[in-house]
């Protein structure tokens, strides 16, 4: 059994989990909650977006641009599947990794 490598990375897993509890959250919220640098967070969300797990919404709050992220249906399913696999591995017998 293999884990979804996109979600398995600690920062991306946390981003997905945060968005799983909300309808949407903006860049600033993820930044302060995760304690990542701007560059790192950008790269992680780009990766998730290119996988189709996140959707991005750009808007303006007055003159200040704001970027919000929302978990897509595909992202929700992938996250649920990821935890299912993880629990199965945790509770199952020890097996070597399949390639």
């Amino acid at each position, binding site marked *: 059994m293999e884990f979804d490598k996109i979600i398995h990375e600690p920062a991306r897993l946390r981003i997905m989990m*945060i968005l*799983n*509890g909300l309808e949407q959250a903006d860049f600033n919220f993820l930044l*302060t*909650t995760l304690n*990542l640098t701007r560059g790192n967070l950008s790269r992680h969300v780009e990766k998730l977006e290119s996988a189709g797990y996140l959707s991005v919404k750009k808007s303006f709050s007055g003159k200040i641009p704001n970027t919000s992220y929302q978990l897509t249906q595909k992202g929700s399913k992938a996250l649920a599947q990821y935890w299912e696999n993880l629990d199965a*591995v945790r509770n199952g017998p020890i097996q070597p990794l399949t390639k």
Partner: protein
Amino acid sequence: MNTPQNQVPQDTEKLKEIPKWTRRYAQNRTLTNLANMVILTLVAMVIGASSYLGGLAFVRGNMILVWVCMGVLFGSLICLFIVSVPKFGGIKIWRWTDRRIYGQEGITAIPEPELMKKKKWLGYVVGMVFMICVMGTVFLGFKGYFAIKYMQPVSALYVVPFLVFLYFWQRPKVGPLMLLWPILYTIHAILIVAGAPILFTGNLTGFNMFLPTFGYGFLTFTIGHFYSRYALKKLKDIAHLDGGSPSGV
């Protein structure tokens, strides 16, 4: 041996709590509600004061003051309409206040409840019924159908269901902590009926209504805000990545 078990994160159970704490944090950013309640209360106080002063001025024949009071009353009624109806600016004011208070922490949104999306009219109908009940109670109270000291217990008959409705109507946008307000309101009403010495008299009679409505609302929203601090701390304890993680590529 390289096994799938080796790849399982150490803090799995804690990680599973991230959505729970995120949601609790977002649900309890209640200083925004508090600020809006203060705005509404101030507007209501201006309406009350201008009506009272206008009445006095009319009795004394000061027509200039009557017209000034009428103008202030009209302006504050428009303000009340704008602040309390989301469609006519209430939501914009709410968002603006939210950004001013919690903007540093970022913006979060919880999905709008299905019931609210599908049956928006229900909110307006309940709001209208509530306003009719408020006016009816004030009218009956001043007509002497019940003692003014029983105004709060009588009002509890519709205020409590209204607040409970608001909770279920807005859920999951608000958390169960918001039920504290109707609970305290009910306890207050029961205590008055039971004869507990918690009544204000003389010039302070107005506090018999002001304290349970504004005071318990203030208390509920303040507790909510502190709970959101706690939830944010829990969330950060779980989600914080020390010094940033690798580039993510």
